[in-house]
């Protein structure tokens, strides 16, 4: 991007190209501030971490496929299990949704040419990459975090974790928080300040509302994690006493601060998924989202209530009953905005003319898995049930339905949906639909038996188990499921990789989407929009002709004008297809044949039939204004 004056005598797009184009080649990628290139950097980096986290998941499942397996040592299992959790949450889902989808799509959806703070945006990415490599450096040195993703004290203290493992955890996550906070600030200011003229809050796409809710959650949730991690490092490195009871510390303080971050975190994971769902559903249902303002408010409300429910992760820690009841009630409350959204999605599909292409299939899978995970979630809000199932595989089943089912399925659907926009080419529809079914079946087979095995008493985070508890066959099924799931994911990425080079050219708007990103070319030029659009509706691509022409899209309509001057006079409701003209024509033929052959009575009958036909013709009048 150079601040040169536009050369005179060139077309507008040529001038914009010269102004906005970045350096070519590797140096261009290293110095880029273009939100789309930063989005792609985030995309490929998080995808690499997703691969690493996936391999860790397969290692875990292979170790747990049968009793007394020795694929991983107990120490290695702890590290792999911890890194699987940290990777999927901090290095895959959050940066994939905010960094990749948010960065790439949000400026396009609001009609801007970049994020509000482009260099801060680039910094976020490099910090995120650094933090991720830092965490994986620990793993490669054999000093990876090994205390579980929530790393409870006293397991995280020097006494029980004398190596650098928990230090990699604490410092790596502080690193990561800084990057996420910078992205969140950028997304908020961009959606507050850089919207195209005419895009008032009520015309902002629901995806942007979701990104706004996520960003505010990050801004207010991450400090709790940072404080917690700083306390931990001060205790580990300098001998402070925040968590050890012997010196007046409080071991539950770790958990309070962690879950004060950790529960909003759950909604940070799920809200972008909701935003992606509200983008895909209207396009394929060919209908605007119903209850648009309610859905927007529900997205914000989910984020808000998310801050009042952290105690439900601590029902088994001996908090007072009144505290537990408060958190149980607050947890029940989250159901309301979530359900508003689920019904809005379902009714939008139901009232539209849905076309079940791959992106919508993934959203369908998302809704199904979200409902299952949500139902087990409501069960945890019941304190006695939670106390009975705490730290069993039932919990693991629940949060994998939410995190993999509800958060990752829309990400996969979104990859297909925006693939033509980003690459300019279409993916293979048939393979995409097949990969959905394989992934869905794999997900159910992997995670559903975990409910049962959890109720049978299998606890979380164990590296192996003995046979004879009735767990063996379920665990084997889960492991088979994990490999089926991997196959499904490989099919998806093979499809996208092949289509990137060989796919059919997509054109700017292959799905006829409603939001602004579909109004520019695929892939978008460096300046996004040659002319900044003026927005008059939440679906500007569908409504964009309202202002300067006559859309006449409420029925079979055309215009009538005044005779001499051609001024607009009225809307004419034109008739639709009809069988009466051909019937009347046929009757008339018979009538004349009868006249010819002097069968006057039959001719009279057919004259009557013709009269009836004319009556039937005129029964349906055009609708009134």
């Amino acid at each position, binding site marked *: 991007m150079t601040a040169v004056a536009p050369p005179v005598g060139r077309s507008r797009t040529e001038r914009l190209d010269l102004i906005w184009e970045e350096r070519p080649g590797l140096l261009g990628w290293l110095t880029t501030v273009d939100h789309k290139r930063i989005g792609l950097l985030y995309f490929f980096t998080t995808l690499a971490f997703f691969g690493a986290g996936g391999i860790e998941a397969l290692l875990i499942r292979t170790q747990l496929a049968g009793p007394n397996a020795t694929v991983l040592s107990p120490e290695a299992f702890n590290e792999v299990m911890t890194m699987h959790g940290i990777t999927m949450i901090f290095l895959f889902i959050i940066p994939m949704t905010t960094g990749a989808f948010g960065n790439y799509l949000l400026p396009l959806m609001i009609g801007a040419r970049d994020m*509000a*703070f482009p260099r*801060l945006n680039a910094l976020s990415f490099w910090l995120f990459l650094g933090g991720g490599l830092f965490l994986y450096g620990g793993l490669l040195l054999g000093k990876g975090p090994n205390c579980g993703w929530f790393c409870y004290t006293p397991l995280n203290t020097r006494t029980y974790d004398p190596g650098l493992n928990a230090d990699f955890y604490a410092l790596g996550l502080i690193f990561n928080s800084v990057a996420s*906070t910078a992205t*969140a*600030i*950028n997304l*908020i*200011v961009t959606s*507050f*300040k*850089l919207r195209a003229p005419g895009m008032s809050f009520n015309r902002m796409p629901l995806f942007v509302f979701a990104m706004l809710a996520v960003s505010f959650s990050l*801004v*207010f949730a*991450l*400090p*709790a994690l*940072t*404080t*917690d991690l*700083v*306390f931990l490092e*001060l*205790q580990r490195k*300098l*001998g*402070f*006493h*925040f968590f050890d009871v012997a*010196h*007046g*510390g*409080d071991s539950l*303080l770790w958990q*309070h*601060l962690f879950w*004060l971050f950790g529960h909003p975190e759950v909604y940070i994971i799920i809200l972008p998924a909701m935003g992606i769902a509200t983008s895909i559903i209207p396009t394929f249902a060919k209908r605007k989202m119903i209850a648009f303002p309610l859905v927007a408010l529900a997205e914000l409300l989910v984020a808000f209530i998310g801050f009042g429910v952290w105690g439900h992760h601590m029902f088994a820690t001996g908090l007072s009953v009144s505290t537990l009841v408060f958190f149980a009630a607050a947890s029940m409350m989250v159901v309301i905005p979530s359900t508003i959204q689920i019904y809005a999605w379902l009714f939008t599909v139901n009232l539209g003319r849905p076309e079940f292409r791959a992106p919508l299939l993934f959203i369908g899978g998302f809704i199904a898995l979200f409902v299952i995970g949500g139902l087990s979630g409501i069960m945890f809000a019941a304190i006695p049930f939670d106390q009975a199932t705490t730290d069993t595989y039932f919990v693991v089943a629940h949060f994998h339905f939410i995190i993999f089912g509800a958060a990752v399925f829309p990400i996969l659907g979104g990859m297909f949906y925006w693939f033509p926009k980003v690459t300019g080419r279409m993916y293979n529809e048939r393979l995409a639909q097949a990969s959905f079914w394989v992934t869905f079946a794999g997900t159910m087979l992997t995670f559903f038996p975990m409910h049962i095995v959890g109720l049978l008493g299998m606890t979380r985070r164990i590296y192996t188990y003995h046979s004879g508890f009735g767990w063996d066959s379920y665990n084997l099924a889960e492991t088979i499921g994990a490999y089926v799931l991997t196959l499904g994911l490989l099919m998806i990425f093979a499809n996208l990789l092949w289509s990137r080079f060989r796919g059919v050219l997509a054109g700017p708007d292959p799905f006829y989407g409603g939001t602004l990103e579909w109004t520019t070319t695929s892939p978008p030029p460096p300046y996004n929009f040659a002319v900044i659009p003026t927005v008059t509706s939440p679906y500007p691509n569908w409504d964009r002709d309202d202002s300067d022409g006559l859309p006449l899209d409420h029925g079979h309509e055309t215009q009538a004008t005044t005779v001499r001057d051609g001024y607009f006079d009225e809307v004419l409701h034109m008739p639709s297809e009809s069988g009466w003209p051909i019937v009347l024509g046929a009757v008339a033929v018979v009538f004349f044949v009868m006249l010819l052959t002097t069968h006057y009575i039959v001719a009279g009958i057919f004259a009557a039939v013709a009269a009836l036909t004319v009556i039937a013709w005129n029964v349906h009048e055009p609708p009134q204004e």
Partner: protein
Amino acid sequence: MSSVPYVQRSAKPNGWWGMVIFVATEATLFATLIGSYYDLRFRTPHWPPPGVPDPKVAVPLILLAVLVSSSIPVQLASRSARAGRTVPTQLALLVALILQSGYLAMQIHLFVDDLHKFSPQGSAYGSIYFTMVGAHHAHVFVGILLELWFFLRLFGGNTVYRAVGIHATAFYWHAVNVLAIAVTIVQLSPSL
């Protein structure tokens, strides 16, 4: 650089908004520190623990008054910068810098003095006391650096870009001063 003069913009500039959201996350950080302070306090029978003196009241309150009063020159600097008056901006920044640097110097002296009396390694009280107070001093230090930067930049004249920076820095300082009131009250609370 925008060709539209600063004063004619009807919404606040992006830089100011970025600072507001940043301050929101920093204020949350202090909220969690203060929350942790009381979490630890209400689990401990003796607060501060035996052998640790009660915090002094008078000197921190006087220092707090000095720091909070620096909001006035900071605001004056912000207004003059937006009006395009370079020298008055610099003078106001200089007054603020003197007040804030004096405050920070005194506070560092008190901090070291406290370290001689009790240590963060001795008890949870010491841990949270030094962490919270230290976090606040770090914010004051960052604010001083921001102001010093703009004070020096203004020798090259005022620009829209710099005026936005000073506007945002002024917001930061008002927020730090409000946090100072909260942190000081918490810090003194055992003696009140």
